[in-house]
């Protein structure tokens, strides 16, 4: 009977790693807290930089699950070390004794309502990048029709001590520019603003996207962090930010504001860390044994990571890390267990 591997987290990292493990002859036991597999990717409409449909990435993965035992709506009740194996108790009563566990617990979207001064959940016209992706997926959204001016606020819950996340979430800048272009494609005569501190368009073809946003879509980039948002009598938003390049505070009347919520550590991270007593960084993400040359292995034997469980990553990085983790597990399982 081929060896089992418990994979905790059914996002793109978990699914991809499970498929690879299956191909290597193992039987992955994929556990997903949510009722459906796919993680955040299931919610996105199109992906940067070229706008490829998320469906076309996730679809094939979801159709290739035979040979993988996956349990949705299931949580981890407990994990204990038994000699050189891990005994994992699931909330649906099942338990598994395995030599390797793969943590693909991913991230949680930063709760934008925590940034009270931006008024998410208080002003109707303030939404998050996730809400915007939902509305893009649902096709034209009625509330957008009377929108003349829209703003994208970068670094919401990222690079912000007060929001409890000093780190940069890496993907929100390029996502904001992508969404700005998509919005402008749908509503060409809308004026689009992007409020950024440092526009981190680090990846391949990201700078082209930025140039296209400026040249073809006329998106206006304001270098200044939004300080507060307020609502006037008839529900329009007043967004305040300083144009630090021009050295003047600005107050712009807008019809819609999109908060680029960053990546916060997944809720269950601390519990899992406690159960397996592996360490969690001060940023709340799991700490790999070496961030440089062993990002997939943990400080404990048999525990492996993949994806945004160890920090913000793009989808391609997550998928490649999933494959790397599968290889690491395979190599680990092939070495004879030390007595």
């Amino acid at each position, binding site marked *: 009977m081929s060896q089992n591997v418990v994979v905790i987290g059914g996002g793109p990292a978990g699914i991809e790693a499970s498929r690879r493990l299956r191909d290597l002859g193992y039987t992955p036991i994929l556990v997903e807290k949510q009722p459906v597999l796919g993680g955040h990717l299931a919610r996105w409409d199109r992906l940067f930089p070229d706008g490829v449909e998320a469906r076309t990435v996730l679809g094939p993965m979801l159709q290739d699950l035979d040979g993988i035992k996956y349990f949705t709506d299931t949580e981890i009740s407990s994990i204990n070390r038994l000699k050189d194996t891990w005994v994992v108790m699931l909330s649906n009563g099942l338990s598994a004794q395995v030599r390797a566990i793969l943590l693909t617990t991913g991230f949680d979207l930063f709760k934008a309502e925590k940034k009270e001064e931006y008024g998410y959940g208080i002003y109707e016209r303030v939404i998050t990048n996730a809400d915007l992706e939902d509305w893009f997926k649902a096709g034209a959204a009625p509330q957008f029709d009377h929108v003349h001016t829209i703003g994208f606020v970068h670094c919401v819950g990222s690079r912000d001590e007060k929001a409890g996340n000093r780190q940069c979430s890496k993907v929100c800048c390029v996502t904001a520019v992508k969404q700005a272009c998509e919005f402008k494609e749908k509503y060409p005569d809308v004026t689009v603003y992007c409020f950024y501190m440092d526009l981190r368009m680090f990846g391949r073809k990201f700078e082209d996207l930025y140039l296209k946003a400026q040249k073809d879509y006329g998106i206006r980039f304001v270098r200044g962090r939004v300080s507060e948002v307020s609502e006037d009598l008839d529900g329009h938003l007043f967004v305040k930010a300083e144009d630090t390049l*021009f050295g*003047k*505070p*600005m107050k712009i009347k807008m019809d819609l504001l999109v908060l680029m919520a960053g990546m916060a550590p997944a809720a269950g991270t601390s519990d899992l860390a406690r159960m397996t007593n592996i360490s969690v960084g001060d940023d709340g993400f799991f700490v790999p044994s070496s961030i440089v040359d062993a990002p997939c292995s943990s400080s404990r034997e048999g525990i492996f990571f993949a994806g945004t469980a160890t920090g913000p990553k793009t989808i391609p990085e997550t998928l490649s890390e999933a494959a790397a983790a599968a290889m690491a597990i395979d190599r680990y399982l092939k070495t004879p267990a030390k007595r």
Partner: protein
Amino acid sequence: MIDFGYGLTPSATLKIENVQNPLFEELHRREPDVAKCIACGSCTASCSAGVFTEMSLRRVILSLQRGREKETLPMLRHCMLCGKCLLVCPRGINTRHLILSIGKVYGPDGLKEEADR
């Protein structure tokens, strides 16, 4: 009105209620590359006039976008059109044509009539 020895200081905030800026739109029509500016300041750093005055093309472009041209257009008059900014611009903007176009679009009394263009 009573003079209290102090008064209301006008707000420095740029209030952008409607986002139309006809002069900038006309400038953008003549030189679309102005939208590509990422305000990196290479032009200002290498500016020949910048050695002797506070000329800064970066500030000029930004002030035009914000509709505050009155503050920076006097500075633009120091430009010798030597073309160094054109050479160093990382975005490949034709800065010289931009400066020439600004001279035609802005200036003391705003937009020229389209007729005699």
